[in-house]
């Protein structure tokens, strides 16, 4: 057990955990940030996606010891008022069915749009293919990412 100081959503937070604890569980169990979801625990579904220094990262397999001073952004910190173009597009297109995977979908898309603000449909698919939506809302996810890209 050790105390880790973390830069999360622009704040310095700390947690007393073991070095191998995945970032996912530190966020959820210790920092109260439950918007980041546990889906598979083996980096297959993308429900746990957060940004670590701007890169989309599967927090379920990312040990806390590796985070260091990196800037971590979760769905709660993507925008102050929940009005990031992706969050607005998600409402506009009414993407969610059960909604459980959507934070991870949005975080994956947000990291992509930062790198590539004007992706083609093929590029959107290539990036979003790593995120599972068990309800099958893929058409609307794709459409919402495209819509958001026109507003960035």
């Amino acid at each position, binding site marked *: 057990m050790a105390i880790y100081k973390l830069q999360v959503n622009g704040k310095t937070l*700390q947690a007393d955990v073991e070095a191998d604890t995945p970032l996912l569980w530190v966020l959820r169990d210790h920092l109260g940030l439950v918007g980041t979801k546990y889906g598979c625990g083996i980096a297959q579904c993308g429900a746990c996606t957060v940004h670590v220094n701007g890169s989309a990262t599967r927090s379920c397999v990312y040990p806390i010891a590796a985070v260091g001073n990196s800037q971590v952004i979760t769905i709660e910190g993507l925008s102050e008022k929940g009005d990031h173009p992706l969050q607005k597009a998600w409402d506009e297109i009414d993407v969610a*069915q059960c909604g459980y995977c959507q934070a991870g979908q949005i975080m994956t898309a947000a990291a992509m749009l930062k790198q590539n603000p004007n992706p083609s449909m093929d590029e959107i698919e290539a990036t979003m293919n790593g995120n599972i939506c*068990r309800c099958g809302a893929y*058409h609307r996810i794709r459409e919402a990412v495209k819509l958001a890209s026109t507003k960035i």
Partner: protein
Amino acid sequence: MKSTTNNSRRDFLKMSAITGGGLVLGFNWFTSDANASTVFTSVAPGDINFNSYLSIATDGTITILSPNPELGQNIITSFPMVVAEELEADWKKVKVVQANLDNKFDRQLTGGSGAVPHSWKLLRNAGATAKFMLVEAAAQKWGVPASECFASESFVIHRASGKKLAFGDLAEAASKIPVPSTVKLKDRKDFKLIGTSLKNVENHKIVTGKPLFGLDFYREGMVYAMIQRPAQFGMKLKSFDGSLAKSMPGIIDVVSFKNNVAVVGKSTWQVLKARKMLKIEYEKEFALESTEDHDQLFLNLMDNGQATVRRKEGDVDDAFKGAAKVIKGEYQCPFISHSPMEPMNFFAHVRPDGVELVGPTQTPGRARTQVAQLLNIAEDKITVQLTRLGGGFGRRLYNDFALEAAELSSIIKSPVKLIWTKEDDMTAGTYRPAVRYRFEAALDASGNLTGYKLRGVGINSGNPTRENNFPSGAVDNLLIDSVEHKSPITTGAWRAPITNFLAFAEQAFLDEVAVAAGKDPVQFRLDLLAKAKKSPAGEIRYDIDRMEAVIKMAAEKSGWGKKKDVSQGFSVYFSHASYVAQVAEVVMKAGLPQVKKIYAVSDCGQVVSLNGATHQVMGGIVDGLGHAMYSKLSFREGAADQNNYNSYRLIRMKEVPEIETHFVDNGIDPTGLGEPALPPTGGAVANAIFKATGKRLRNQPFIEEDVFKTIS
């Protein structure tokens, strides 16, 4: 171990109630006797002894409770739309609240595509009754006949003078108006909300990561727990040594009940790690079955099993003896897992004076009953708080996880959140049963279907046929029977139970028969329906006209038979109470079939939320296609071979075809749509692949069939 920032987490799932200034109109939505409705003033919603209610605050806020568990079927938006429609509410002033389990509600569950059909009239009556009283109150205030007034956008308006009063200002007076014994419901041509695309009322919470789901629930002082269950179906717990696990950091206790060994600790990760340190011995209780055994069983039981007759018409033996042509086809599917994105979990706090349950279940009432029986405690001492469900697909109809949480809490005497890993979800059962079907058809010299046989053999499948579905009623000589093998591998309802595979097999077989008869598959089905209408063979339990209408519309919308660049496949299925026809279009790419587009025409009666309905059809098709194409659970000595998304394949974005949806507008009351769009998909796709390749797909997952194997 210390938590640093969690103030906002306390009670974050506590339900809000209208407070101060307002009044609550309570309605009995669930009887047709409007006299049972009563008006309450200044009573907190939680104290109202009614089936359901809406409330209007003096500031005009309209609170509508949504009683049914929300798992993505959009009920939390659709139900309130129906109430608001009849109320003539301004939707912007409507606040929707997820209700907890309460005896005042009826059928407070999610399953069987039944919520909207069941509650449609009752929801409308609830809105219309309130509107009647608000209009009456305004008319009295103005001293005019109520017939001169009408409601619109949360106002009551006097037609002649144009005077208007807001609902919020009328609520107090309206509460004193006698409740009408009957109310007039709106004509559907006047619907303003129903049939439109209002957005999901929880969108903002979903996209900002607010705690909505069971796994997000937190209670000060709770502990976390995971259970090690036997990895093999047929094994039981013999002994265990939890000392090493218990010595791990953060671990509070290791306890055992039934076949479970539970690890209890201060955080999910610590519990997850410690669980791996358990030393457990199991012993054989029942047969340890493998997929190989089942494959053999299917063949044996198909020929030699003791079959239960499900439906019999005419004389099939005679029909087959005199047939000009006999066609046979067999189809088989594996077990599959529900694997919703949110793994099973539940919170339980068993205290000496009562039990608190919180979490995602499709059947909260059943959870309460089962926990009451388990702990020998009165049902009225148990509360169940509903969270949003991260998917269900039938898995959360069963409350094994809630029972485990309750039993564990009673043992450790502490509030506990029980968490399943994805591996637990996938390996601990309640699967869609593995089934094999044999179809046989007899054709006369003109290609008419004169005899039809279906035998279904299933592993813990119950009756794997739907003996009264089409084409029953359209064939004079028919025999449908089934054989069941009882297995230690547990099974249950999986979205569109039985029909999720039966529809594929049946629609693929009918395609074979149409081809053998030299008929167009669409015309072949229409001919059968015409025959059923003209001279029905026994009882008919489906609506011939509704089925005919979706078939014709799907053929029209898809340009059936008119396209040269794609291979089309047709399928139509009646399930629950709705009708869906689909046309799949396939092209060959690098020697492999690729599904490009699926057209769907649905008759679910009146569409409530167009957005929600479209979601259910598209999601149902993606679900049906994905599982038909890719998913299977196989077993070796009672243990599942696949345990997570790396070995159990689900469909992904690149694999979904274009989907075009249409709805039949026939003025029928809603008949449900959570499941009916799923069953037809596999058949439409398989039939299109036959058109493209000349090969019949007979087993799921399709990806393991020869047409999907690249020539190397």
